[in-house]
């Protein structure tokens, strides 16, 4: 029997089953809902069969791990060779406090660092700026100058760890500081490994921690890519991020499509700069959320790898297979954590983490159960890390690569994710690209609509959230939450003022003037920013120079 004949045979049998066996069961116990849908609205069938993947061509669509189109993974041995990097996003209070938390996490078996900066640092203000009042060290660690960065990595050799930095607008300054710390430790920049998020496009419609308008923002991103390609070869200069798109309310398809389209925009920008695709593309990395719908998420990650590989090959004519690799970091979705019955979050995080592992992630952050209430306590963050270790060492899911390949359901969903993503790509191409789409508020509206729809589903109990709109309990679980001492701000401001009075201010001014000049000349700003931070110019001072020339972004409000 040919494949086609086999499929016809199955189709016939399915029709028979639907007419004979199924009605009896439905008569006795009707299905719980008239239709079942996943988060991105796909109608989920009762059962999937070979019919649903009849066009799947194994070598074309899946291939082998480590080979095009990389659906099954970017490495040939995947987690059998090396487990993913367990990288917990952390930072609060002073650099000294966060340094302690880093050391604690490394002692507990974490394998990479990830810095959460406070809002003033993220928005390019020093700790003593009026905007910083009440925010210093609260949601992340306060870093205003190289001095803080030196304390942050005190006793942590930069050639022994890799570090991820969630930083966008001031990414160049923080990377410059990291390079300078390495320099002081005797670690040359060729040996530094890590990631700067440096994905400004999604800032305009998802994370929204923006300093400069789109065009100069994109210029700074490209400067970093260009500089790293030449001088910091082990650095991932951008982490193209869907996580925030999802958290802002986008569904899985929107997360996938908008993220990859941002990726396309960065590639185009680097090509316009005169770089060759195979020089920089291998270091582009990605960052996604892992939400609650296990199979939808797995399909999303697998589709992401395949679409990116095809895009790099077909749209940008990459030759180096590494240019086609989508290496990803995943974080479990913070939005799904509930303040009600917070211990239940441990279960949610486990399911979410499992999707990322089953789909072959390179790096993972698991959220702590208390994060809907406050910053994570030491106990909560340890449990989050242990969750990863249990999945890695006890569950057995890592013993084979891409174990869900061939599942009628998962392959069908993977294909559907790809098709819907390509539809968005066409729409965005027609709009003239990501920046015009941002300026029109396209992404913003799409995300806001999905967020509102999700909330309505919860309010109307079409979507059950355990402990929130069902299975509620009056009983309070006492959770001891971490509070940042309000004295942190005072201490931080005092030490910043001390620095400003003790450093060579003549040299600082000279550097800032040079920066002004280089910015006007539209040069690559990385070298001068490195010199400026080494002279202890602060993030605020450097950003002020750029603000003067580039202006500040004014939010386009889309409700």
């Amino acid at each position, binding site marked *: 029997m040919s494949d086609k004949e086999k499929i016809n045979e199955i189709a016939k049998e399915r029709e028979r089953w639907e007419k004979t066996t199924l009605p009896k069961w439905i008569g006795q116990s009707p299905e719980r809902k008239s239709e079942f849908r996943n988060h991105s609205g796909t109608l989920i069938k009762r059962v999937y069969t070979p019919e649903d993947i009849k066009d799947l061509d194994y070598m074309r669509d899946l291939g082998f791990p480590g080979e095009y189109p990389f659906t099954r993974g970017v490495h040939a041995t995947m987690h059998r060779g090396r487990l993913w990097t367990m990288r917990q996003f952390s930072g609060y209070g002073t650099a000294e406090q966060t340094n302690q938390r880093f050391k604690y996490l490394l002692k507990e078996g974490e394998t990479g660092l990830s810095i959460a900066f406070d*809002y*003033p640092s*993220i*928005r390019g*203000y020093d700790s003593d700026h*009026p*905007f*910083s*009042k*009440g*925010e210093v060290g*609260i*949601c992340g660690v306060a870093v205003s100058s190289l001095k803080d960065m030196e304390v942050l990595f005190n006793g942590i050799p930069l050639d022994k760890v890799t570090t991820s930095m969630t930083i966008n607008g001031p990414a160049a300054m923080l990377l410059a500081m990291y390079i300078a710390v390495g320099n002081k430790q005797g670690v040359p920049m060729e040996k530094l490994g890590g990631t700067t998020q440096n994905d400004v496009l999604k800032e305009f419609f998802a*994370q*929204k*921690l923006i300093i400069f308008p789109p065009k100069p923002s994109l210029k700074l991103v490209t400067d970093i890519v260009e500089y790293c390609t030449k001088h910091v070869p082990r650095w991932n200069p951008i982490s193209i991020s869907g996580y925030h798109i999802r*958290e*802002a*309310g986008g569904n899985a398809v929107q997360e996938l499509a908008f993220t990859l389209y941002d990726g396309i925009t960065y590639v185009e920008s680097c090509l316009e700069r005169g770089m060759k695709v195979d020089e920089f593309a291998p270091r582009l990395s990605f960052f996604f959320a892992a939400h609650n719908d296990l199979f939808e998420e797995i399909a999303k990650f697998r589709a992401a790898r395949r679409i990116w590989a095809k895009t790099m090959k077909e749209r940008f004519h990459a030759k180096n297979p590494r240019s086609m690799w989508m290496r990803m970091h995943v974080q479990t979705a913070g*939005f799904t954590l*509930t*303040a*009600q019955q917070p211990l239940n979050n441990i279960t949610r995080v486990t399911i979410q983490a499992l999707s990322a592992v089953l789909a072959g992630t390179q790096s993972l952050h698991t959220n702590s159960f208390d994060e*809907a*209430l*406050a*910053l994570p306590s030491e106990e909560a963050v340890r449990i989050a890390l242990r969750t990863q270790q249990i999945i890695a060492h006890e569950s057995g899911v890592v013993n084979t690569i891409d174990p869900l390949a061939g599942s009628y359901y998962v392959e069908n969903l993977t294909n559907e994710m790809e098709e819907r993503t390509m539809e968005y790509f066409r729409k965005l191409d027609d709009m003239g690209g990501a920046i015009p789409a941002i300026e029109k508020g396209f992404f913003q509206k799409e995300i*806001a609509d999905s*967020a*509102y729809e999700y*909330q309505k589903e*919860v*309010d109307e109990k079409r979507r059950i*959230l355990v402990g*929130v*709109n069902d299975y509620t309990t009056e009983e309070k679980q006492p959770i001891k*939450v971490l*509070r*940042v001492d*309000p004295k942190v701000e005072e201490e931080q401001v005092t030490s910043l003022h001390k620095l400003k009075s003790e450093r060579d201010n003549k040299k600082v001014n000279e550097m800032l003037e040079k920066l002004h000049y280089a910015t006007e000349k539209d040069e690559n700003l990385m070298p001068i920013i490195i010199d400026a931070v080494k002279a202890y110019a602060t993030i605020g001072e450097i950003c002020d120079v750029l603000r003067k020339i580039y202006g500040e972004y004014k*939010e386009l*409000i889309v*409700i």
Partner: protein
Amino acid sequence: MQNQRKIRVLIAKPGLDSHDRGAKIIARALRDAGMEVIYTGLKQTPEQIVETALQEDVDVIGLSILSGAHKTLFPMIMELLKQKGLTDVLVVAGGIIPEEDVPEMKKLGIKEIFGPGTRTDKIVQFVFENVPKRT
């Protein structure tokens, strides 16, 4: 005949955090319930928020904050409202505000704090029931 004036609401994001998912959803829900909603956008200083409230002649202010800076910023906002004579405006808040801070926030004059997981219709209902009556 007096025209029935729509309830005017200012949804404001004080502080530096950018989590606007909740603020936007609330803005939409109140609008769908027939209110006139003004949304400030992100990164508003206490001065800007109070100035907008004054300019827009609002009946209700909804403050949304998830950065943890509420203990610094809410007192500043409430004090400025007092200075400007906006004492009859209904002020409510939402976001990540630890339970133990709620009494202190209410003492400032914030009528209610809506934590994560609150149904939007609860908030709509609260506004209808507590909005000051215009004479």
